[in-house]
Each structure stands twice: as structure tokens, then as C-alpha cells.
């Protein structure tokens, strides 16, 4: 039957109408939106995203893909950066309103690590998907974590990260935090001085490119969560691709929404 009738939660495996439980502005142009899970069986894992219809009717036309920031039994939190018309509409929604989502979409971070040292590096709104990752890894007794979180100005969700890990380096282009500038310098220093078993990162592409290079120079495995403009989010339209290696000297465009958004650094080819 048609889905637009009423406000009941409808479901066809991956399409749901979900209630907004909370919506708070937590930094300049960043909102924390808590959404009720459509059911207790709804499983969404670190690295995955939901594709959200932000407006009513046909404006804006496309959904907006938003990474999952934190989950518990009954709810999931997304952190939304207000950067355009769609995200603005989403951030303007109130508690009690319902949003139409597709999900869970995409692959997950590989968290099949039982022991060792992990370095997690985020930049800008790219810190958001690393929060759920941090929560999951914090449940593993023999995994030791350190975080580097970078911001253009005012940091956000640092306290949330500190619920799970003590070692957090806060970087900002503004004065007054642990390090002034970009995440790359403290990241490089950390990798050189201490050996890590795995790096996880999400942020703007130029940052990820450097993280990949430096990780490779230090022979450290790195998982990168790529951000890209999408349309369908389910692998049909092929607009959100990235270059990945195929065999010895060939490459291919693969779908970030389907084969990703998480890739090993050694798979991805960033253009010069």
C-alpha cells in the first residue's frame, strides 16, 4: 500500500519512517539528532549510513546520506553539518517529527581486532562516524585506543568520545586546544613515536590522502571512510564512485555507497 498515509512506522526491510527524539545544535552549524530505531532488530554498524529525505515533496529532490554517529538499543544519533538546503531542512526538524530513511546502507569498519593499538583520526564532521567505532572498540579489553580529532574552529562531541577513551588529542585551526593547525602533524608524530596496529580515519579527502600516505610509510594498515555526494545511496546510479586498485596495474571506479564507504588505504587511489 501507499506509504504516505498517516504517520505510522512503515517498513519494507530497508525503508522506514522514524521519529526524531531529540535535535540539538551542538556547535556552529552542527546538530545532534537522535532518531528512534524503527525496531529493536534494526542493526546499523560503525561505518554505515542512512539516506534521509530532508524535505517534503520533491524539494530537495535527493536524499542526504548521513553516517551513523552513535547507537544504543533503541535509538541512533546522527551528527549533521548544515552545509546546504537539504541539511538545513533536516537540522530544522523538531522532536516528534518523522523522517523517511533508507538504511542501513554501505559496509562497515572492520572491527575484527581483539588486541593491539589503534589510532583513530577524524576531521570536521568526519569525526561523527568514528564515535560509534570508538564505542565498539572500547568494549574490547585488549584494544588500546588513541584519538586525534581535528576541527576548523570550535570542537564538538569531544566529551562523547571521552566517555569511551581517555587519550584524545584535540586539534583546531583556532588557539586554545591541544594542538593548533591540522591533524596531520600530530598524526605523523604519533605514528613515528609509537607503533600502531591499525589506523581508522574519516574526514575531507586531502586529509585522508595524507593519512593514507603516512600510514603506508609507517607500514600501518589504515581504514578510510570516504565522504561523497550521493544520489540513491543503494548502488544503482553510479554517481558516488572512487578509484580503487584492480590487479597489478589496473584500476576501477567502485561505488562508495555500496562497496564502501569504508576502504582499506591500500585499495584507494586518490587523484593528484
Amino acid at each position: 500500500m501507499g506509504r504516505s498515509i498517516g504517520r505510522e512506522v512503515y517498513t519494507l526491510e530497508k525503508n522506514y519512517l522514524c521519529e526524531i527524539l531529540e535535535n540539538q545544535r551542538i556547535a556552529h552549524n552542527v546538530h545532534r539528532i537522535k532518531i528512534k530505531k524503527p525496531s529493536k532488530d534494526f542493526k546499523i554498524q560503525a561505518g554505515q549510513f542512512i539516506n534521509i529525505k530532508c524535505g517534503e515533496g520533491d524539494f530537495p529532490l535527493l536524499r542526504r546520506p548521513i553516517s551513523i554517529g552513535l547507537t544504543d538499543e533503541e535509538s541512533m544519533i546522527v551528527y549533521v553539518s548544515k552545509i546546504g538546503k537539504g541539511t538545513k531542512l533536516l537540522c530544522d526538524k523538531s522532536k516528534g517529527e518523522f523522517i523517511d530513511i533508507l538504511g542501513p546502507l554501505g559496509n562497515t569498519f572492520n572491527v575484527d581486532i581483539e588486541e593491539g593499538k589503534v589510532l583513530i583520526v577524524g576531521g570536521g564532521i568526519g569525526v561523527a562516524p568514528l564515535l560509534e567505532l570508538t564505542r565498539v572498540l572500547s568494549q574490547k579489553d585488549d584494544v588500546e585506543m588513541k584519538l586525534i580529532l581535528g576541527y576548523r574552529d570550535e570542537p564538538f562531541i569531544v566529551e562523547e568520545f571521552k566517555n569511551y577513551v581517555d587519550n584524545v588529542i584535540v586539534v583546531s585551526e583556532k588557539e586554545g586546544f591541544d594542538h593548533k593547525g591540522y591533524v596531520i602533524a600530530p598524526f605523523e608524530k604519533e605514528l613515528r613515536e609509537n607503533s600502531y596496529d591499525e589506523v581508522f580515519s574519516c574526514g575531507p579527502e586531502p586529509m585522508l590522502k595524507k593519512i593514507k600516505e603516512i600510514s603506508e610509510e609507517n607500514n600501518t594498515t589504515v581504514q578510510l571512510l570516504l565522504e561523497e555526494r550521493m544520489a540513491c545511496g543503494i548502488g544503482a546510479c553510479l554517481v558516488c564512485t572512487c578509484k580503487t586498485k584492480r590487479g597489478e596495474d589496473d584500476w576501477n571506479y567502485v561505488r562508495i555507497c555500496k562497496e564502501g564507504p569504508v576502504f582499506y588505504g591500500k585499495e584507494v587511489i586518490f587523484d593528484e
Partner: protein
Amino acid sequence: MNKIDLSVDLNGLKLKNPITVASGTFGFGREFIDYIDLNSLGGIMVKGLTLEERKGNPMPRVAETPMGMLNSVGLQNPGVKYFIKEEMPFLKQYDTKIIGNINGNTIEEYCEIADILSKTSIDSLELNISCPNVKEGGVSFGRDPDMVYKVTKAVREHTDKHLIVKLSPNVTDIKEIAMAAEKAGADCISLINTLIGMAIDINKEVTVLARGMGGLSGPAIKPVALRMVYEVFNVVSIPIIGMGGIMNYEDAIEFFLAGAHAISIGTGNLINPRIAIEVLEGIGQHLAEKGYRSIEGIKGKVKVPSK
């Protein structure tokens, strides 16, 4: 209430209902199985196929525009042979018609792909002479009635399969293009493909798409599509599959009234993966309310008040 027959016969291609999904917006069908029962579709136009694999265009490939989107995917596809081996068997499990969208740089390439697909159980071929996002072939074939005639005629001679020709809206007179396709032996016409467009980032002063231009789709192009279906309906006798910005059943009904015998949903699939079923339900209800018993009954019934 009289029973409504939603099946349509597109000059030899029989669809259980008039809803198809447009090439390039539905992958090879797999991507939609979490959302929709593929058995409920009249037909699936698969992602555009070429002789060899195509990697497609550089990123960015998408720009959202008012009531529409620009894409510049560039026919990324694994090639026709891979499709036959890896994707056809999956699609053939379903009770729906599989329509192969074929693309070439040259007439010979179109013919070669048609030859290859003709040896399979594919239900129909859709000759794409309207892709705006490739250097060679594509829309350059679809702009000139003589070229449309030549490529359609050549492919016609290479296949006994049902043959659809997909037209580009980027032409001065769509009627002469449609007539050329009909004369060359097309069984059916599908229109429209995307309109060539552009978007610019005013801060960086660069085009949003890496290749500068791309194909505009979505509700923004619906009035143009409707006008073209109407114009073509009045000059050809072969059936038309109408498409361009269909987002709900009301849009689909407009296409039938303009002269379409079936419709195709494109960009709508990218926003609501279940749209095809919703449109189908709405069409059935509308026909019932209006007292029509088939698509044939409503087809081309629009009246122009001042005529």
C-alpha cells in the same frame, strides 16, 4: 467494478503492466531487491551496455539542481559479455521483461552488441542514441534524422529482437527523429533521455561536474518530456514509452494522456526505491475511477482546448 487490464503490447513486446524502470537508474536490478519485488514490474531497462567495459567519467558526476539532478556517469558498465554471464541469469529469475540498453561509438559497434544480445533470451533491445555523457556515439547519433535512420536500420538488420529506439530531447525537431526511427524499422520509441545541462560553483568558479556538462533528469524535465511524447504520438504509429520526471501516478497518467503506451521511471527510483509499485497502484485506481478498462483506453486522450 469492471476488471482493469493493465497489460500492454508494445508492438510485439508484451508487458504485464505499463511500468518500466529507466536505464541507468536501476542498475541490473539487484540493488532494488530489498525494496521492491521485481516481479511486479512490467520491464527493466538495464544499465547502458557497451561492447567492452567502460570505466565512466571522473568525479564529481552529480549535481542537484532545482527539481532535478545532473549526472555525468558516462556509461560506466562491465561490458555486454559480463552482463550476459553474470547479470542476465539473475534477472531472468523474475517474471518481468528484460530490456538491454545498448550503446556504441560506431554503427558497427551497435550492430555487434545487438548480435551478441540476440543470441540470448533478452526480451528487447533499447538502442540508446541519446547518451549526453560520452565523447563518441551517444547523442551525436540521435541528433540527425539521417544518422538515426542509418543506425536503426543497421541494428534492425542484425536482430530479430523487439527493438526500441531511445530518443534524445536535445534536438530541434523531435518529430523528424521519431519518424526516421519508425521508417528504419523500430518497433517502439522511448523518450526522453536527459537534457544537456550545466551547474556552476560560484565560489570556486568551476563547473560542479568534472566534465562540465551532464544530463538533467527529474521533475524539472517533465513538461519537456510530455510535450515531446505528445508531438511524437501525433506523427508515428509505433508505441511510445514515455519518461522524464515521473514521481507519482499523476505524472504517469499525464504521459498516457499525451500518447504514451507505457512509462518508465528514472530518477524517481533513486529517491524512492518503491516508487514503481506505488505508481502502478495509483494508475489502477485512477483508471477505475475514470471508467477506463485498459491503458489503450486512456492513451492519447488529451484534448487541447483551443484546437
